[in-house]
C-alpha cells in the first residue's frame, strides 16, 4: 500500500463581496483510501481583515492516507461563509479542487461559486442576505448533476499544500 501525506494550510480568501469570512473544509476520497491520522474536515475561525481585501486563516491541514489504488484521489471541498456583525452566517461560495498528485510544495487557488436563485431571491439577498444553498454538497463531487445549477462566480481561496508520497514508485506510479 502506498501512503500520502498532505501537510499544508488554508492561507485565506479574497475577492468576496464582504470581508468577514470563515471556511468549512473537508477532504473527500474514494473507497480505496484510508485515513491513518489527522483530521479530514474542519472549520476555520472568522477573520475580519483590518486592511486589505484578503481574510487570512492559516488553518492547518495535516492528513495521512493509505491507499490500495489510484482511484478516488483525494479532493478538497471548501465552503466559504460570511458572518456579519449581527452574527448571521451566509453562504458565499463552494469550491472544489483535487489534491495535487505530484510531490512537493504547491500553491493552489481554488475558485468558488455560489448558487443563484430567481431574481426575487437575488433582490432579497441584496437586502437581507441568505440565498439558496445546496441541499447536499456531496452530490456535486462527481459532477454528474452540475448542469442543473445556475451559479455566479465568487472569490478565490488560497491554499498551500505540501505533498509527500511514499511507496508509490514501488508500484510503478509516476507522478
Amino acid at each position: 500500500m502506498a501512503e500520502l501525506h498532505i501537510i499544508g494550510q488554508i492561507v485565506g480568501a479574497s475577492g468576496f463581496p464582504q470581508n468577514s469570512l470563515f471556511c468549512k473544509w473537508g477532504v473527500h476520497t474514494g473507497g480505496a483510501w484510508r485515513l491513518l491520522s489527522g483530521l479530514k474536515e474542519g472549520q476555520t475561525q472568522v477573520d475580519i481583515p483590518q486592511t486589505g481585501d484578503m481574510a487570512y486563516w492559516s488553518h492547518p491541514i495535516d492528513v495521512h492516507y493509505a491507499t490500495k489504488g489510484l482511484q478516488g484521489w483525494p479532493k478538497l471541498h471548501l465552503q466559504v461563509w460570511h458572518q456579519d456583525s449581527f452574527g448571521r452566517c451566509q453562504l458565499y461560495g463552494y469550491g472544489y479542487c483535487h489534491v495535487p498528485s505530484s510531490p512537493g510544495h504547491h500553491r493552489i487557488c481554488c475558485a468558488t461559486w455560489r448558487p443563484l436563485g430567481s431574481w426575487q431571491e437575488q433582490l432579497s439577498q441584496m437586502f437581507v442576505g441568505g440565498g439558496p444553498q445546496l441541499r447536499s454538497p456531496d452530490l456535486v463531487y462527481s459532477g454528474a448533476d452540475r448542469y442543473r445549477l445556475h451559479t455566479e462566480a465568487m472569490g478565490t481561496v488560497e491554499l498551500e499544500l505540501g505533498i509527500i508520497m511514499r511507496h508509490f514508485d514501488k508500484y510503478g506510479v509516476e507522478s
Partner: protein
Amino acid sequence: MADSWNTDTGEAVYRSRDAVKNLKIRVRIERLTSTAALSQHLQQQVLSQQDRGAIELETLTSQGQKGDNEEELVVGWQEKLFSQYEMELFQNESACQTPLDRQYHTEIRALNKARSRRNHRIFTYTDHDRYTSCLPMQQLHPADLLTTTKSGPTFLAERMASVRNRRHERRTLDSSIPKSKIVMWEPTEEFVKSSHVVNNAMQTMHIMADLAPPGRLGQKENEYLLLTIKTDGSGTIIAKPDFNKGKEPYRIVTVGEKREVWRLNVENVCTAMQPEEKEREQNMYKDLYVRHKEYLNSLVGQDFEMPPLGILRYMMNGEIVSAKGFEYDHLYIHFFMELPNNWSSLPFQSHSGVTQTCRARTLGKENVAFFSYPFSFEAFYMSEKESEEPIPQWPVIYFKVLSLDSWHRYRTEGYGYLLYPAMPGKYTITCHTWRPVQTGTVSALRRFFVGGSPELEDPSYVRIPGTFKGDRLSRFGFCTETTGSVTFNLHCIQQARAFVDATMMKKRRQKVFEQLGGFSQQGAVCTILEAFQRARKKMQEARECLPRDLVNTTSHVES
C-alpha cells in the same frame, strides 16, 4: 601574587536526555587568605626549583582554620541542605508556618539528633523554598551585561526576572484545545506577566554559601549565591555560572567590613551510564520504534492495484477552473474525451461532462466565470511492442463553451481542445478558443437577437478532424473569431508495471557503473542483459498466448 580568575560567569545551556535527578555537582569553595596565597606561591616556586636540588621549604599553613576556610561538597538535584540560619530558624516550632516549614523542622531535628549534617557553609535553596523567588535581582542577574553604567535593567528584563517559577504543567501534545474560554477578555496581572514574555516553566535550584567570618555563621547578609541550575521538563539544563572544567576558579568577593576573596570551583560529577545499560536502553527504544512501524504497516497493508503487464494506466485528475474573456454571460462548458488508437478505458466511465452555468463577475478588466469542476478520467494504453512505433498519441479533451441566458437564448461562445500531457505532474493550462463565424450581418443580428450561431458538426475539427487522412490539413476558407480562454488544472499520474522494473534496472545499472568505473564494456554487458530479459519476456508471453490444446498435444507427443 595575582592569580588568574575565570571571569566568564555567563550561563551555559546543556541538553540531556537523562532524568535530571541523576545530576550531581561538586562544589568547592576556598577562602583566599594572604597566608594561603603566600604558601601556594612558595609551593609553586619550590616545585619549579626541585630539579635544581634546592632545599625544600616547609609550607606555612595555619592548621586550625583549615576546616573553616574551605569546603567541598557533592550536591544532588533538589537536595536540600540547610544553612546555619535555617537550622536556627526552623528549630523553633513556632516559626513554622507552612507544611514545608514543618517538614524542615522535622528534618533538622533528625539531623541534630544524628549529628549527620554534611555541610557547613554551603547550602541550597530548592524549588520549593520561598526564598527562590525573593532573591534580590542583583544577585540573580548581575547587571554587568554592558560596559556602560546603566541605571538598571530594562522593563522586559524586570518582567522576566520577577516571574515566579511555575510548576510543570503537563500539556498534552495532541490537539486538545479547551472548548470554553479560548479568549480571555480581561487578563489578570498574573496572566499578563506569565503570557506576555517568553517563559518556560523551570525548576530552579540555587547553591549558596554562607561566607561570614569564621564563627559568625547564621546571618542572612552573608549568604552569597554560588551557582544556579535551572531545568525545564524537556532536558534543557542551564547552569550559571558554567562548570569550571579544569579552568581557573571563579572569584567571589564578600561585601562587608572585611572584604574577603573566595575561590569557587564547580564540577559535574555525574556518573556516566554503564555500557550495558546504554545498550539496554537503546534496544528498548529500537523495540518501541519497530513495534510502532509494524503497527502502521499492519494498518496500511501490502497490496496495491496494478494494471496488467504491458499496459500503461493514465490517470488524469483535473478541474475546469474558470473561463474568461467571453462575449456573453452565463457560460457553461461541455467537454468530452477522445481516445485515439491503442487506448481504452473502463466500461462504465463517462467520457463527457457538462459544468454548471455560471454568471461571470468582473475581475480586473475581464469577466471571469468560475467553475471549479473536478473531473477524473482513467485511460489505458496498450502498446503493440516491437513495431517501430512513433510517439504514442495521447488522448484529447475537446470542449465547447456555450452561453445560455434567462431568455433561453443559446449561443456558442468558443471551441477548444486540450491534449493530455505526456509527462506526469501538475499542469495549469489555459486554452484559447475560437468560434466559427459567418460573414454577413444576418448571422450577427441573429446571434444578437435570437441566439443560435453556427456550430461545428464534428468537434474534433478543432484539432485534427477524425476524418482527416493525408498530409496537409487545410482550413482555407474557414472563418473564425477569437473568443476567450478556459483554464484547466491537471494532475496527471501514470502507472505501469514496466516502471517498477525500469527503476530497478536503473539502480542495477548504476551500481555496475559505479563499481567498474563506467567502462563501456560493462555498458555493453548491461544492454545484452536487457535484451535477454526482453527476449525472455516475449517468449513467456508467446507461450501464454498459445492455445491450450496445442501445448497439451506437444507434451503428449513428447511423453
